[in-house]
């Protein structure tokens, strides 16, 4: 038993490359914001993001003038790409909270150099997710009707509906994510305030840092607050995707109405989220030369989490098919059979290839340590998870209980424009973030350095 402690302490050695000091860590991360020129690759990506964002604005403008019919929504498929995209984006966000909250509670120190941008990813992903249910309302300008407030119409939301639960879950999630992120930023904003030379920058960062000065009294309260927020965010993140899955399971549509959706959705969310973390981290660390801070070990760990959750997702697909068959319910069986062999069979088998077969390559260290392959793999996972939600949502709705109303869903160019547009919005926000704020938590990386360990001397 005495060895247990050593096992916990041992891995911390290789989290960041040797040779860093408090000063160099600070300078390297802060220089991205304060002194270094933005690399051309980043400028180019930003231009692409802006282009996609303009397409998004065009698509939304058209939607507002003409209505949701510009998307491929026709009865009986009244939910299609929009809700697929919503679930996809919310799911991506979950990895950020997992890294920042759950891994903090589990004392996984390797999270310290990736949690900041993963949290930013969460916030921007939730912002993109929020677009879809709001735009899908038909009259998005009345979105405040979703919230209970005293009104002259004398009506209130139906609190027994999972869709209203979703409003509360996602808005709480967005709020708590922003708070957690901002609290984490405060000490680093103080660093930027003290490091920047331009007066306007000093004032701006100083304003945002709220006068943080690294006082021991403050750190003590701050650490308590971080732990409490992590403890609160952990059940919250699990609840959010659970509630998202309840949007489906509470409905009696065949293929939706099952009890294992919540854990299945949460696993899928973390799976796709870690894929996005890898898809962002791999280019970032090479463009900005941060390979000493975001090391092979981070990528390896993220790939392992991705594989583990991918296996849970694969298991869920098998259970989904099994429980449909075992239920003895002809509608459930038909819905499952329809997914595998019906008009959406290509999407179904591609998603099986992406989510069940592909992650098994990550068993091999060679695959996990090759960053190019890992990057491609994370994109495969993102595509696979998008298709998963598409098949669950559209295949069940398009071929429902009443064959006379069946209609195969066809997407329109505006479905594509809105979806690609939110990818533009995401990249736009993310690139602004890495330009304006430290993308790695400076103070948390300092705690990882060997110098940060207190040496007890005789004077103590």
């Amino acid at each position, binding site marked *: 038993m005495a060895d247990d402690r050593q096992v916990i302490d041992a891995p911390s050695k290789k989290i960041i490359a040797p040779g860093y000091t408090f000063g160099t860590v600070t300078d390297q991360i802060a220089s991205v914001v304060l002194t270094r020129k933005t690399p051309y690759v980043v400028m180019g990506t930003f231009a692409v993001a802006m282009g996609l964002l303009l397409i998004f604005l065009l698509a939304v403008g058209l939607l507002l003038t003409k209505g949701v019919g510009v998307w491929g929504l026709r009865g009986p498929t009244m939910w299609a790409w929009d809700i697929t995209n919503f679930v996809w984006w919310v799911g991506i966000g979950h990895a950020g909270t997992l890294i920042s909250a759950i891994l903090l509670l589990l004392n996984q120190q390797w999270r310290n150099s990736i949690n900041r941008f993963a949290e930013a990813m969460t916030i921007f992903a939730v912002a993109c997710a929020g677009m879809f249910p709001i735009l899908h309302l038909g009259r998005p300008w009345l979105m405040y009707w979703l919230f209970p407030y005293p009104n002259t119409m004398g009506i209130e939301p139906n609190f027994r509906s999972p869709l209203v639960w979703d409003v509360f879950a996602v808005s709480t999630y967005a709020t708590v994510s922003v708070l957690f992120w901002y609290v984490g930023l405060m000490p680093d904003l103080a660093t930027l305030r003290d490091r920047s030379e331009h007066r306007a920058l000093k004032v701006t960062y100083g304003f945002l840092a709220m006068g943080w000065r690294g006082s021991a009294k403050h750190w003590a309260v701050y650490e308590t607050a971080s732990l*409490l927020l992590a403890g609160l965010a952990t059940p919250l993140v699990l609840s959010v995707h659970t509630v998202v899955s309840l949007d489906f399971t509470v409905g009696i549509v065949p293929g939706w109405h099952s009890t294992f959706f919540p854990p299945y959705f949460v696993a899928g969310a973390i799976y796709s989220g870690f894929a996005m973390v890898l898809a962002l981290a791999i280019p970032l660390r090479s463009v900005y030369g941060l390979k000493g801070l975001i090391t092979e070990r981070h990528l390896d760990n993220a790939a392992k989490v991705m594989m583990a959750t991918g296996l849970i997702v694969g298991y869920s697909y098998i259970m989904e098919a099994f429980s449909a068959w075992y239920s003895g319910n002809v509608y459930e069986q038909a819905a499952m059979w329809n997914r595998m062999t019906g008009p959406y069979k290509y999407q179904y088998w591609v998603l099986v290839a992406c989510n069940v077969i592909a992650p098994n390559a990550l068993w091999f260290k060679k695959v996990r340590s090759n960053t190019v392959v890992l990057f491609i793999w994370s994109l495969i996972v993102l595509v696979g998870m998008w298709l998963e939600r598409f098949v669950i949502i559209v295949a069940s709705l398009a071929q429902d209980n009443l064959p006379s109303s069946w209609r195969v869903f066809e997407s329109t160019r505006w479905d594509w424009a809105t979806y690609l547009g939110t990818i533009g919005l995401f990249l736009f926000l993310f690139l602004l973030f890495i330009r304006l704020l430290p993308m790695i938590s400076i103070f948390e990386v300092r705690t990882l350095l060997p110098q940060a360990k207190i040496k007890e001397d005789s004077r103590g």
Partner: protein
Amino acid sequence: MTEPIYGMMAEFDNPSALVSAARAAREKGYRQLDAYSPFPIEELSDALHLHKNRLPLLVLIGGIVGGILGYMLQYFVTVMYYPLNIGGRPLHSWPAYIIITFEMTILFASLTAVLGMLGLCGLPMPYHPAFNVPRFALASRNRFFLCIESADPLFDRDKTCEFLETLEPREVSEVAH
């Protein structure tokens, strides 16, 4: 008589020196002191006896208030203000209230955690004398500071300065108000 000052500040270049200095200052009897570091140091909180704070209690209260408000809101709307009779099922359908009650608990607890943290730290604080020491800008990079404040009954400009010098700092400076 010279102008009153805020305190005396010693600068160290490693966290171990700061922790031993903080312990030495406590032992000497100083109580009005604060340490500044670029990252949280567990041992420093021990040395300065900072482990107790009221934040957990505040967050607990915030969470309970949020949960009760969330439940009451739903009860009020579905039972009293806007009752919907669905197949004669009970209006007080508590299982359906659980999720929003939970989310409101988390929301209120998190807001309390952040606002409580700011409140207990006295932030936002636009001005603090510590920033009058030019080298204090390094407290957010790689330097560690110990400040004995003039509010301490044992504080004496010369003696405190001498004491701080014995701790082998890089530099000791006066902190103007």
